[in-house]
């Protein structure tokens, strides 16, 4: 199951990394686009362009990993769904495993 979730995230092609950042950004609560870019820049040091950001948002929303919340403003906030959270957890677990292996190999070197 976990493996398939990871594959689903990587299936987003060039949007897989921005999508991971968006899921990560929404992990601590709903945010709109601008807040997401600020948060992502602060956490990862990468500044997502509007095209890349909304390309990722559109794909995540299509998969129902995030969902929009009602808003009177033009800036619509998004929240993580249960499935999105599971996908994010699986992806982070995978990255953690990679990190462990990398650190162990560096320690041996």
């Amino acid at each position, binding site marked *: 199951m976990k493996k398939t979730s990871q594959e689903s995230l990587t299936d987003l092609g060039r949007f897989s990394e921005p999508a991971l950042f968006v899921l990560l950004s929404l992990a601590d609560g709903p945010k709109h686009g601008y807040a997401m870019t600020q948060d992502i820049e602060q956490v990862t040091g990468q500044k997502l362009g509007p095209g890349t950001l909304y390309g990722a948002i559109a794909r995540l929303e299509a998969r129902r990993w995030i969902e929009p919340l009602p808003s009177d403003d033009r800036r619509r906030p998004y929240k993580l*769904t249960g499935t999105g959270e599971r996908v994010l957890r699986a992806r982070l677990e995978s990255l953690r495993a990679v990190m462990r292996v990398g650190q162990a190999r560096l320690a041996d070197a």
Partner: protein
Amino acid sequence: MAVPDQLARFLIRAYPRAWRIRYVAEMRALIEARPGSWSQVFDLARACAGEWVAATQGPARSTISVRLIEAAVAWGVALAAGLAVWLAGGVLAVVLAALFRDSTPEPFGWLLMGNLALWARPALGLGVALSSRKPSVLRPRIGPRELWLWVAWMVVSSALHQWGRADADFIVLLNGLWFLLYWDGTVRAQKLAEALKQFDAATGDLTEARRQLWRLDRLKDRGLPVLPPEMDQALTHEMTCLHDVQRLRAAVRKLQYPW
């Protein structure tokens, strides 16, 4: 307003219509909140092109507008390729005329007389592409191999025509070859479309089941109902399996391009 800001606003309007309707207000709000930059313009241009490509792929691309885009692209590529060969031939003719004055035709005559056949070919291509709107008669849409064959045919026939080595019979032969290939593709695509229809019918129930599971998952997001861990795990597993089925359906639909 700075040039990057103006370009960014223009590029937002260039997105596919369905995409624009859904996200344009949010994107405008985001762009207004950030200072305009050329990297932002580049990002929007790349993403816009990507969304157009995505809009013409997958099962949702059966609208007439998408087919018109495909026809326009086929026409544009064919025209550009033919024109490039024609101009290159003209330039080469000038060079050859300078070197071998007696053995080549008057170079400016080639450029000025116009090549009606050159313009007729892309027009024919446009007609063929537009005719694909009739799925019962011709292929549902232009496939990549057909497009390449069409461009190759354009280049070869234009080159031959330019150098005066192609007589009318040869052009007719090439035309016949093109339509034979086209007809062959039509027959294959119709057989494939029938198989896809059966596949759709067989997996349609699974898609409906996945929709129901999504509803349950959304209810779970809102806290209702509270599922026991084993049921929650089973739900996740089922959704993943059905997601794979949906991916399989999408992959099979891509087979509508037989080559």
